[in-house]
């Protein structure tokens, strides 16, 4: 376990800011305690200071997880967000889309969101913007990337992909053993 280097922090924040913009500040500067990001086995964990100190006593091989895993650094040095980060992304999300109940299951099985399944979308969403996917009852289901901007969404035909799937809460079951 160690703090992120400056370079890693930058990569990580760049990825996070695609979804929550400058709201990252709210994650770092919290009134209810000191929270920090820690790297462990290439994964970034968002953890309270006290918990981190306690977890530091456990040897590296034996430490499975602590705090919330936000994602991992790939071998090529890029950062990949995991679904476990959704709890922190959803409240601060800048761009959201809502999927119809009929398309919910498709998304939860790892498919992209089609125009036909699109319920609502935040105004002025640019193309390739990171978006959080909600169900119509405002339950965060996952996140993805907008394949079409809001304006384009109006024009395209129903079978066009409007949001690329990145992660969904179905992964808690599908990839249970890789999530930490």
């Amino acid at each position, binding site marked *: *376990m*160690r*703090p992120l*280097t*400056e370079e890693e*922090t*930058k990569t990580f*924040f*760049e990825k996070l*800011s695609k979804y929550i913009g*400058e709201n*990252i*500040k709210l994650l*770092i*500067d919290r009134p209810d305690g*000191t929270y*920090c*990001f*820690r790297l462990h086995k290439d994964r970034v964990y968002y953890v309270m*200071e006290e918990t*981190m*100190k306690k977890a*530091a006593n456990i040897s590296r091989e034996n430490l499975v997880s602590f705090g919330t895993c936000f994602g991992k650094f790939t071998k090529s040095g890029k950062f990949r967000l995991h679904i476990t980060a959704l709890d922190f992304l959803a409240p601060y999300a800048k761009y959201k889309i809502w999927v119809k109940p009929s398309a919910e299951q498709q998304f939860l099985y790892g498919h992209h969101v089609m125009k036909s399944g699109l319920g609502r979308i935040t*105004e*002025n969403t*640019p*193309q390739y913007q990171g978006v959080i996917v909600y169900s119509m009852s405002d339950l965060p289901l996952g996140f993805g990337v907008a394949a079409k*901007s809001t*304006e*384009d969404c109006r024009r395209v035909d129903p079978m066009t992909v409007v949001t690329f799937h990145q992660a969904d809460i179905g992964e808690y079951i599908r990839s249970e053993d890789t999530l930490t």
Partner: protein
Amino acid sequence: MADLVESVLQKAAEKESKYKSIEVHKDIDLDIDAGNLLAVDPNPLDAKKLREKRDEYLISLARDNTQLLINRIWELPVERVEGTIVAKLPAPKTILPREKPIPKPKPETKWQQYAKLKGIQNKKKARKVWDDEIKDWRPTWGYQSRVNDELNEWVLEVPANADPYEDQFGKAKKAKTERVAKNELQRMRNIARASKLKVPGVGLTPTDTPSKDHLSKALTLAKKSTASVGKFTDSLPKEKPVKNTGKKRKFEPNVGDMSKEKSAQLDILSKMAKAGPTVNVTKAMKQHMLEEEQQRQKTNSERPKKAKSIKKSIKRKQGKDTKRGGGGKGKRRGRK
């Protein structure tokens, strides 16, 4: 005369009384190991005497036991060496711990480590081997061995694909010197490793067909091989920074100053925001197209209800636009 005899006898008796008897009685026999000149007294101590006259009692006890030990020594076969009586001690019975620690095994050489790992067993080579050509025994290695035959040959074959003007004798000699040098180097490194010194690297040995990796290593080494350790060496245009130059990565302490960490992260964030949004051409174009479309719609069907909200959004849009410095002339209209 009788007086004289008496006085002599008396003196003898006095002298006798000074010495104690060599006869010592013990309830339990002593455990005597003559080989080590060791006697162990298993009899219990007399507690009363020990308390009253401690020192005297202990001295007398020691004397008696020593007497018994010496008695035993006198039972051993004796001989006279240069006028001194010498007893021949039997082999010691008691096992004593050794004085010095057990010597450590010799440190293994690199080859021995490897051989052990791979399960390679060394066959003992004979010092001499039979040579059919000269019908005689020759040393397996070293002076006059077959290994050195090449050097003693009066003529050498030129390989088919070799340069005919190449000096084959020189080549063989050089190869031999290199082999010897390599061996010597390895020997030194083994010694260095055994004595826990820092083992120096070999650096880069020249090769005929250097790989890309080899070349880049050579380049970094060459850049560093100046009096200023490469401090003032210019790099080539578009030269990539060298990876893995042996610089150790250093990380912040895990449990350090949390507030410092926080401020550093906020700093990075603010820097990122500053570097922030450049003009996204596609985005600007789309926005422009959208506005045109909306304007068309508006001209087609004027709806007084929406006028207010449009005005509001215009204001906000303009604020945003000035910040971003995005290009675009003419009227801009957004839709809420």
